[in-house]
């Protein structure tokens, strides 16, 4: 398994940007056929509540661009101090070119900047941090700007109860930079490609380009409507996947780092939903106080932006403190792909949650 250790690399700032439009499961009465009892049950059991979604015409690039601009300005950095851009997204503006290149132009970065996209979802933030650590460790890159965000609301069919009330949109920007302090970091990255069909958008790529045929809507056994152009999720299988790989991945990384659960100040999991978060917490016998869980109920499942959103929304004070905080971050989902990291934060100056100012 791909496990690795780094030193002298730190996170220098994190900003997450969410859209202004808030939706609530309480507004989905029609979607549930007037069954308000089921809505109450979903709120209570799964923790579905509010989510933020973009207006038509706003993309993950816009959200991440706003986050990046705020981050560079709050950190007092010039854009030309960034040596590389990594953009983690599965909802890019175009099939080509990559979002990182478009953002490079928008931010007016110098030409000697590396820029690339990473096609990952809920595990993507951890993978992006890992790549950024590699790039800084290898030398040449003193500072990497990691963007992670998605607008899954644009891919779900509004009449698909298995996904529509779950997903929200969000974009994040994170600085990863070299430091003279030790600042150790540990990573583990894993994949199970045999499960790729459990969570996917079947059409729109080269294997099955979008067409009139792929846009045809069908109704599944549970009465949910979607086309091949929409996001499909086998909820039961993804639940099984999450509760089996996540606890194991966390235990293995802790053993690799050679620390115990009590040595970790916060466990920041991908904010899938409260039920999965609670379940992983229970299985790992973690102190719920150490596990941020509020983010998903306010913003929805934000794919690769959910971990930074939880950090900005729930841990800004803790990470800004003078005492070092040790965090375990862990993302899991589409691929199937999952990854965990243990990072240390001291006196994090910028850790802000912002709203997108203007939408088209």
């Amino acid at each position, binding site marked *: 398994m791909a496990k690795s250790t780094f030193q002298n690399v730190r996170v220098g700032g994190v900003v997450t940007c969410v859209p202004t439009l808030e939706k609530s499961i309480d507004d989905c009465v029609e979607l549930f056929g007037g069954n308000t009892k089921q809505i109450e049950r979903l709120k209570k*059991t*799964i923790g579905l509540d509010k989510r933020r979604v973009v207006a038509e015409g706003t993309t993950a690039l816009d959200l991440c661009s706003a986050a990046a601009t705020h981050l560079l300005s709050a950190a007092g950095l010039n854009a030309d101090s960034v040596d590389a851009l990594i953009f983690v997204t599965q909802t890019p503006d175009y099939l080509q070119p990559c979002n990182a290149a478009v953002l490079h132009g928008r931010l007016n970065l110098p030409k000697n900047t590396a820029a690339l996209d990473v096609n990952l979802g809920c595990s993507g933030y951890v993978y992006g941090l890992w790549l950024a650590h590699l790039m800084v460790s290898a030398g040449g890159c003193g500072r990497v700007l990691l963007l992670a965000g998605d607008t899954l609301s644009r891919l779900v069919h509004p009449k698909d109860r*298995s996904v529509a009330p779950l997903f929200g949109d969000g974009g994040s920007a994170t600085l990863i930079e070299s430091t003279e302090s030790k600042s150790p970091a540990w990573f583990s990255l894993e994949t199970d490609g045999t499960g790729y069909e459990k969570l996917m958008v079947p059409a729109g790529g080269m294997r099955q380009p979008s067409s009139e045929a792929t846009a045809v809507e069908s109704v599944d056994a549970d009465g949910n409507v979607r086309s091949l152009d929409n996001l499909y999720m086998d*909820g*039961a*299988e993804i*639940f*099984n996947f999450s*509760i089996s790989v996540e606890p194991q991945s966390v235990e293995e990384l802790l053993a690799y780092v050679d620390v115990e659960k009590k040595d970790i100040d916060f466990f920041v999991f991908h904010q899938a939903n409260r039920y999965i978060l609670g379940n992983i917490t229970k299985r790992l016998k973690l102190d719920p106080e150490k596990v941020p869980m509020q983010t998903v109920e306010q913003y929805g499942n934000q794919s690769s932006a959910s971990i930074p959103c939880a950090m900005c929304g729930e841990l800004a004070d803790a990470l800004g403190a003078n005492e070092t905080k040790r965090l375990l971050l862990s993302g899991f989902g589409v691929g199937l792909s999952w990854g965990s990291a243990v990072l240390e934060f001291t006196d994090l100056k910028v850790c802000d949650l912002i709203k997108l100012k203007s939408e088209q």
Partner: protein
Amino acid sequence: MSLEKLITIVSESLETLPEESLSGGTVFKDLKAWDSLAVLTLVDAVDMEFGVLLKKDDFLECVTLAALYERVQAIRRARGN
């Protein structure tokens, strides 16, 4: 483990479903509260109690509670516990 224990778990997982109304012959999909959410909570509860992670297919193939009980036992036997 016992069938009675599984019935208790099903009753608790599906909320508001009295244990007396369930038996080995109970057919899952005939239950009023049986839906995708019920599957999730039951998968979790069975795993926590018996250490067996059921798949969606297990619920399609096992029509009754007794059949599901047999399936869980078979998985445990195959593993040597």
